[in-house]
C-alpha cells in the first residue's frame, strides 16, 4: 500500500476500498472466479498503475486493461504509410510527439526523421495548419490520431483550412471510434468481462447514450469514470454495486466533465467531416468493422490518402509479440515472452510499450508491486 500515501484524500480512499471489499464479499460470482472489469481508456490504465490501484483491490477483482490508447493500437502498416508520406521531398509531416516512436516494419517516424525526412512534432493540428500557411511551397500533412477526444480538433482544423482556402494542407486520417471497438470486444469469445469503466474524455465528446447497447444487449454495467484515483475507486464500486444488484446500466461518475448528451459543437464538426470506414486495422486486434473514420467526399482535397499513393499494406505483427493477447486482457503484460527482455520502453517492439498509457509500459514503469503478486500466480 505504499502508493496510497500520495492520495490527497487518503482516508476517503481507505473507506472506499473497505466498501469495495464488503461489496465483493456479497457477490456470489466472485467466489467462483475473479470479476473482470475492463478500463477502456489508456488514461485510466496510466492512473491505475501510477497509484497502484490494482494492488489495493481485493483479489476477487481483476482489472483488464483495454485497447483505449490510440497510439498503442496503431498497426505497423499505418506507420509505414506515414514514413512513406514523410519521406517525399515536398512533404512536411506533422505529428503529435506520442506517435514518433511507434515501430513500423522498417522504421519509426523518429528514425525516418533521423534519416532526413522533414517531420515536425506539433502540439495541435492548428500548428500544422500554421506551418502550411507559412510554407506555401510545401505539402503539409497532419497525422490525425486518436478516438473521439481528438477527432473534433482535426475536423475543426479541416473546416478552418477549407474556409481559408488553404491548398497545401492535408490529413492522414487514422482516427478511430470507440463504440464498434467495444462491440468487437464484447463479441470476442476469449473474453469474460463483467463490467466496464467507460472512457472519460471520449464520453465528454459523445456523451453516454452511445453506450446504451452495452447495457441493453450485452447486459454489462458501465460506469463512465474520471481519472483521479478516487474517481477510479468510486467507479469500480459503482460497477460492483450493479453486479450485486443484477443491474446493467450506463452510469456517469464523471458528470462534472461529461454531459450525458456530449458536446454538440464537437459532434456536429465530426459528423460534417468524417464518415465511417468499412473496416479499420488495429494492432494486435486485427480488422474491426466500422472502427475507423475517413474524410467525406467534399473534403477529399484534404485527405492525404487520396493525395498520395500509399503502400497501404497490412503488415503482420512480429510473431513473438503478444500485444493482441494483452490488449484483449487474455494475458498480463509480464506474461509476454518479450516483456522487459527484448521489449522495453527504450527499445519497444510492440506499441503497448511506447506510450505511458500502454499497459506494458505502465507495468514496466510502475508494475513491480503487481509483478510481485504475479510471482505467486
Amino acid at each position: 500500500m505504499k502508493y496510497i500515501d500520495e492520495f490527497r484524500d487518503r482516508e476517503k480512499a481507505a473507506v472506499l476500498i473497505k466498501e469495495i471489499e464488503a461489496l465483493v464479499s456479497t457477490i456470489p460470482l466472485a467466489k467462483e472466479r475473479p470479476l473482470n472489469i475492463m478500463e477502456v481508456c489508456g488514461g485510466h490504465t496510466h492512473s491505475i498503475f501510477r497509484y497502484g490501484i490494482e494492488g489495493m483491490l481485493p483479489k476477487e477483482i481483476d482489472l483488464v486493461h483495454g485497447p483505449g490508447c490510440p497510439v498503442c493500437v496503431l498497426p505497423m502498416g499505418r506507420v509505414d504509410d506515414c514514413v512513406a508520406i514523410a519521406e517525399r521531398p515536398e512533404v512536411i509531416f506533422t505529428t503529435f510527439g506520442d506517435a514518433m516512436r511507434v515501430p513500423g516494419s522498417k522504421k519509426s517516424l523518429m528514425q525516418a526523421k533521423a534519416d532526413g525526412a522533414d517531420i515536425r512534432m506539433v502540439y495541435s493540428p492548428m500548428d500544422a495548419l500554421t506551418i502550411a500557411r507559412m510554407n506555401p511551397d510545401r505539402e503539409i500533412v497532419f497525422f490525425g490520431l486518436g478516438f473521439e477526444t481528438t477527432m473534433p480538433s482535426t475536423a475543426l482544423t479541416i473546416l478552418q483550412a477549407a474556409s481559408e482556402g488553404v491548398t497545401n494542407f492535408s490529413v492522414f486520417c487514422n482516427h478511430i471510434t470507440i463504440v464498434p471497438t467495444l462491440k468487437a470486444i464484447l463479441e470476442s469469445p476469449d473474453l469474460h468481462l463483467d463490467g466496464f469503466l467507460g472512457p472519460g474524455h471520449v464520453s465528454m465528446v459523445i456523451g453516454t447514450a452511445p453506450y446504451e447497447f452495452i447495457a441493453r444487449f450485452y447486459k454489462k454495467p458501465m460506469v463512465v469514470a474520471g481519472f483521479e484515483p478516487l474517481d477510479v475507486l468510486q467507479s469500480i464500486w459503482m460497477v460492483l454495486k450493479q453486479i450485486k444488484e443484477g443491474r446493467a446500466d450506463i452510469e456517469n461518475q464523471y458528470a462534472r466533465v461529461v454531459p450525458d448528451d456530449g458536446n454538440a459543437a464537437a459532434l456536429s464538426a465530426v459528423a460534417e467531416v468524417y464518415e465511417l470506414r468499412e473496416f479499420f486495422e488495429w494492432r494486435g486486434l486485427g480488422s474491426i468493422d466500422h472502427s475507423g473514420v475517413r474524410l467525406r467526399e467534399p473534403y477529399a482535397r484534404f485527405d492525404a490518402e487520396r493525395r498520395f499513393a500509399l503502400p497501404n499494406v497490412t503488415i503482420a505483427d512480429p510473431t513473438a509479440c503478444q500485444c493482441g493477447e494483452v490488449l484483449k486482457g487474455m494475458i498480463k503484460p509480464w506474461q509476454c515472452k518479450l516483456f522487459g527482455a527484448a521489449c522495453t520502453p527504450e527499445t519497444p517492439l510492440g506499441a503497448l510499450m511506447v506510450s505511458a498509457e500502454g499497459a506494458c509500459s505502465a507495468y514496466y514503469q510502475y508494475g513491480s508491486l503487481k509483478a510481485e503478486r504475479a510471482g505467486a500466480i
Partner: protein
Amino acid sequence: MCLGIPGRIVKIDDEARKLATVDVSGVKRQVNIACIVNDEHPVASCVGEWVLIHVGFAMSRIDAQEAAETLKILTELGEAQAEIEAMRRPRRRLGGQRHEIYR
C-alpha cells in the same frame, strides 16, 4: 493527448474564428474555443473561465477546483510536464526569429 490539461481563458484573440489565449500553469497559448461556446454562452463571455484543453482545443468548461485537482493528478502522472513542454515548444525560439517547427 487524451487526458488534456486545464487552462484559464485570459483573452479573446479572434471572435469570429473562436480563438482565445489560455494560461496553462503560466504558459500562454492560443486555443480554439468553438466547442465550448453557443448562443447562451457566447465567445466574449469566456474570459476568466477554466477549460479542459485537448491538443489546442478547449473541450469542456470546468470549475476552478476541478482544474486544480486535474492539474495535480496530471503532474503526478508526469503528463502535465509533457503537455506543457509540447505547448511551449513552438515559442522557444520566438522573439524576432521564426520557430524551428514553422521555419
